[in-house]
């Protein structure tokens, strides 16, 4: 102990500095921190869904009671409604985004136009979610601009009620925020498709529909899958849109989780969140299975490398 001199300390610090710069410990340390901050909370949440709340205290006694109440109290309807809305919105996004991405990647020739569109698609990621959603109330509401104009013009005699605080409003409000997440992955993958494939396809006498179905679609599939994933994930626990535009009529999983935590029902919040994760995991596995069937992944990457 006493032999530990200043010289030793300096050499220790130097050794520490060298290892710090060698970077061998960086990745293991990062993985360790990430396991604590990401994986562990998710595991704890799954475990929590099997506990109960009594007198505002979590009782650490495993049971299925939370899951029973989840099914009994009709919260199950929130699950089915969420699934329905999420599927509808994802499908609409896909139908609009796939042709648009094809156009943007291959037909649009002006570099400037491309740059502007990509910029316009990126900026919404950085907008405040509540202010961009609340404004729809001033547009779609009973006294909103659409109803006011239609009333003034005499096209309608009473304000259109279903435009706000309805499932329509929730669908509509979700369309624009989740459009870029679908376009970008498809755009990036279609951008990589070699034009020679299409020429070869045409030279061999394939019709446009054939080329689209047998050449473009399989090659664009990784992008389509990525697009679906990045649209599904945030949609599954969407909270701002159903809460602000649903007006309490459109109960989805996101608002249910928030309400459960606000009412100190932590196990219920955990159970509902587990439902979200399970459904997402199921859908992801399904997507991977579908992709495997659609020709081997190896071919796709081989084609993309060209």
């Amino acid at each position: 102990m006493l032999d530990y001199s200043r010289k030793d300390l300096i050499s220790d610090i130097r050794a520490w500095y060298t290892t710090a710069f060698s970077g061998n410990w960086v990745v293991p340390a990062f993985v360790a921190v990430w396991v604590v901050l990401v994986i562990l909370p998710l595991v704890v949440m799954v475990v929590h869904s099997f506990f109960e709340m009594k007198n505002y205290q979590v009782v650490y006694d495993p049971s299925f009671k939370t899951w029973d109440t989840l099914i009994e109290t009709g919260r199950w309807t929130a699950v089915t409604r969420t699934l329905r809305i999420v599927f509808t919105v994802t499908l609409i996004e896909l139908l609009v985004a796939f042709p648009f991405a094809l156009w943007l990647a291959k037909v649009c020739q002006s570099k400037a136009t491309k740059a502007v569109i990509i910029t316009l698609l990126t900026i919404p990621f950085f907008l405040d979610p509540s202010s961009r959603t609340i404004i729809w109330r001033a547009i779609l509401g009973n006294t909103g601009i659409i109803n006011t104009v239609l009333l003034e013009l005499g096209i309608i005699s009473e304000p259109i009620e279903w435009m706000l605080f309805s499932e329509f409003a929730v669908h509509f409000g979700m369309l624009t925020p989740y459009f870029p997440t679908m376009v970008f992955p498809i755009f990036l993958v279609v951008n990589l498709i070699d034009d020679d494939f299409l020429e070869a396809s045409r030279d061999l006498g394939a019709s446009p529909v054939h080329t689209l179905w047998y050449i473009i679609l399989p090659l664009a599939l990784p992008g389509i899958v990525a697009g679906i994933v990045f649209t599904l994930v945030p949609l599954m626990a969407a909270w701002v849109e159903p809460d602000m535009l649903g007006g309490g009529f459109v109960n989805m999983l996101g608002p249910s989780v928030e309400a459960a935590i606000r009412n100190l029902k932590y196990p219920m919040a955990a159970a509902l969140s587990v439902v979200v994760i399970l459904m997402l995991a199921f859908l992801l596995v399904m997507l991977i299975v579908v992709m495997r069937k659609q020709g081997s992944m190896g071919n796709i990457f081989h084609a993309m490398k060209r």
Partner: protein
Amino acid sequence: MTEHGSNEATATASSKAAQGKLLTWRHVLSWKIWTKLAKWIGLILILLTYIPLVWLAVMSFSDRPLSGIPYPLSFDHYRELFDDERWIEPLWESVVMGLVVALVCMIVATAVGRAIPRMRKPGGVILIALVPLFVPGLTMGAALFIFIRSFLELRLGLWSIFVGHIVWAMPFSLLLVLIIATRFDHRLLEAAEDLGARKRRRFWDIEFPILRPGIIGAGIFGFLLSFNELLRSVFLRGSETTMPIYNWTMTASHMSQVPIIFSLSTIIMGITLPILGGFFWLLFSKLDRS
């Protein structure tokens, strides 16, 4: 002059090639109507993204922002906004939080991003790092809340918001650094070593300048993702209020406060949109050159 002429020649050649490509794609999307339809429906969706923002700015000058017609016009809400001081602290908190998150993202993403390509099997590490991308924000927030508040029984505060933001922003930052780091030629470092450069110089003089675009991108993404983060912060806030939480509580509960939010959002967009636009303009003009 000759150089100019040859430039023109290559330009026409490439435009011809482009037309050839265009023809094949036109052939696939042969019905012109379909191409047009694809383009216009997409553009309409982009337009629908920006119309509300413009309308938000217009209505912030209206006497009654939640009514249909922006009339009568007034600056009352802006005056109210500057008399009211409750939004200053949340704004300040979000700016500081964004800067801290950006800094941490830049440092960690650089350290990890440059180490991953040197690993023999990086797949597992990348997969773990990207897990937060596959968990919805609200779910991750609920998981962290239950973990910190109910399981560890710790007091929530700015530090827990910071944890939520790091978990959200880090995968993006890491990806940005990785994209550049994987293309990094490690022979450059070996050459520098042979020429006698020390480790520190090898990093700062060779690796860092090459990784710089990714590192800067990591910082920008870290700041912006943190600055607008709501879904995780809302659970992890404790008694703290960031800007998005302030906006949310004002719009959700006190209807009388909505006009102020319109003015505030307009001011913030007036500052951030030109910065973002400028950033992308620089990015694309740089990409165009290289």
